[in-house]
């Protein structure tokens, strides 16, 4: 029982990270039909923003040294500004292009961001310890101890999801955004301002990326210029198996991918454990063979004729 609870907590916290990243990707896909290959690099930038820009092997904290109440808005601001710059310089000029062109555009953007990071910070991984006391254990019940961070990750994810749902259903702009995701052209004809809706979606996607980067860097304690890529990959897989264009699907997919990873991590024999990701992908391909349209079908995912 204690063991099962431990595994459950692991799966929930990993799934939370994937779900948050998948939500950021899914939001942009809904409104812009953009598969944002730069989302992982937004996450990376958020983590790198904690330290002083230099190529030194030892990382010196800059924003990372601030009080959490200042630190969090600063990181969020950095990532949101980056996302908005990307929207102005890349996504907006490409708005009328085909989804494939947009996708290559974001891939190019991600590649540029990665290499600028190498230019500024150097290509080697750096250790960065912030809020390391969060990894101390908390006793949930008799014999079950989980790191405080896992509870925080799950808590933050829940809060962000509730806020997002409230925003999308209860506010004017949220309703606009959902309308735009459903049928962009129709929404524009009914007087919804396209640029405002898209910028808002980009900004929210940036905020979610910033949340992921902070949670992730506290968990791993390492900065690496490709740290966001693998997270993004699992988030992509989450959006595909959840059903493209469905936010509920993205969350479901994120938790599903997290659960599968943790289960494999726990139950694979130790010499097979290094191949965990390969097994995850194999399972994903199997799911897609059975349900190519994803677990949750959305209206936007059907290509209209």
């Amino acid at each position, binding site marked *: 029982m204690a063991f099962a609870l431990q595994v459950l907590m692991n799966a929930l916290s990993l799934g939370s990270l994937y779900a948050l990243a998948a939500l950021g990707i899914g939001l942009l896909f809904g409104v812009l039909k953009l598969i944002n290959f730069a989302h992982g690099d937004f996450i990376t930038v958020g983590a790198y923003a904690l330290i002083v820009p230099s190529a030194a092997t030892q990382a010196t904290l800059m924003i990372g040294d601030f009080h959490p109440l200042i630190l969090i808005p600063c990181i969020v601001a950095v990532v949101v500004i980056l996302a908005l710059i990307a929207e102005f310089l890349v996504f907006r000029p490409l708005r009328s292009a085909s989804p494939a062109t947009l996708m290559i555009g974001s891939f190019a953007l991600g590649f540029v961001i990665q290499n600028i990071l190498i230019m500024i910070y150097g290509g080697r991984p750096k250790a960065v310890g912030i809020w390391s006391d969060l990894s101390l254990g908390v006793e949930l019940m008799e014999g079950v101890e989980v790191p405080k961070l896992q509870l925080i990750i799950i808590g933050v994810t829940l809060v962000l999801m509730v806020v997002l749902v409230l925003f999308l259903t209860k506010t004017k702009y949220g309703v606009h955004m959902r309308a735009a995701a459903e049928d962009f052209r129709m929404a524009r004809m009914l007087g919804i301002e396209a640029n405002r809706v898209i910028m808002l979606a980009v900004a929210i996607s940036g905020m979610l990326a910033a949340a992921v980067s902070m949670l992730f860097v506290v968990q791993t304690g390492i900065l690496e210029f490709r740290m966001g890529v693998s997270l993004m990959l699992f988030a992509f897989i989450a959006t595909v198996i959840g059903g493209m264009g469905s936010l509920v699907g993205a969350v479901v997919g994120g938790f599903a991918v997290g659960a599968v990873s943790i289960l494999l991590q726990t139950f694979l024999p130790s010499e097979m454990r290094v191949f965990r990701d390969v097994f995850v992908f194999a399972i994903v391909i199997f799911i897609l063979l059975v349900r190519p349209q*994803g677990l949750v079908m959305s209206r936007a995912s059907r290509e209209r004729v």
Partner: protein
Amino acid sequence: MEPKTPLGHMVREVWPLIILSVGLLLVVAIIQSLDDRIISQSLTEGLIRLVVVIGLYIFIGNSGLISFGHIGFMMIGAYATAWQTMDPMTKDIFVPGLPGYLLANSHHWLVATIIGGLVAAIAAFISGLAMMRLSGIAASIGTFALFMSFYSLYLQWSTWTAGQSSLVGIPVTTTPWVAFWFCIVAMIGAFVYSRSKFGLALRASREDEVAAKAAGVDVTGERVISFTISAFFVGMAGGLYGHFLGLLTVDTFYLPMTFITLSMLVVGGMQSLSGAVVGTIILSLVIELLRKAEKGVDMGGTNISLPASSAEVGLGVILLLILIFRPTGFTRNAEIYWPFKPKVAVTEVTHRQS
């Protein structure tokens, strides 16, 4: 002017192929006549990349789906070829996990390269059966996931691939002329495929998937065929690459390689063979120049250089500019056509707005 003889008609049919081959031959001959070892190495690398880009064109150009996974097939081909050509003594040390037959025997590099391509094609066929069932964008993401899983598999599979260290002792057999002939074969393959029954059906589905389905095109099946053929060429390019470097690391086949080859295709024009060739030549030149600039230029005694990895940044910016200002690439997605006829306005392919 219309050609009057049967031969004339044939020449006109394969005109893009002739002009591209002759052009490439001239480029190779001129660079080889410089007799500079370093330049000739860059040439070989460029020609191998050209084989990869032509392979990418076979799938991406005809199907209209973007694949981020082909460098995975290049890696599969590269390792499969190296397993066959390495000296049995070295194999015992680096890749002791190979099956007994491979450990004890070696093949000629040409045979090995073709078999390497076939291995990549089989991998593509099997994975394609699953991937190509997905709709357009999901399929692209699927190929990316596939690529990452091949990458992590090869990185961990150390008894076969030497894992995170490098596999050395591969005979160096790829000369510029070898690579040139593979380019020619790949161009012929791509040209013939795109004009075959299969290629035409796939191109129809690229323009309008629903209409093609209604006309009886098995879209998924055609995509799998094209995926397999393109992986065959990309896999052979991988074999050539291993025998050009003389060593292999899994990290060679990662995101930078994916990015460079994909941008070559997009910059040239995704939907034409001429685009693949032109894009590769132009971007290879740009990369060479930027790499030179990274090393530094002497100007009045001081060494002025660009910071490291500015070649990559420059490449990314060029790609973005092309996508924004000329999304159909340098060739506007058209082949180099028969020059002796009244000029017909080339209509640009416009994408339906959804």
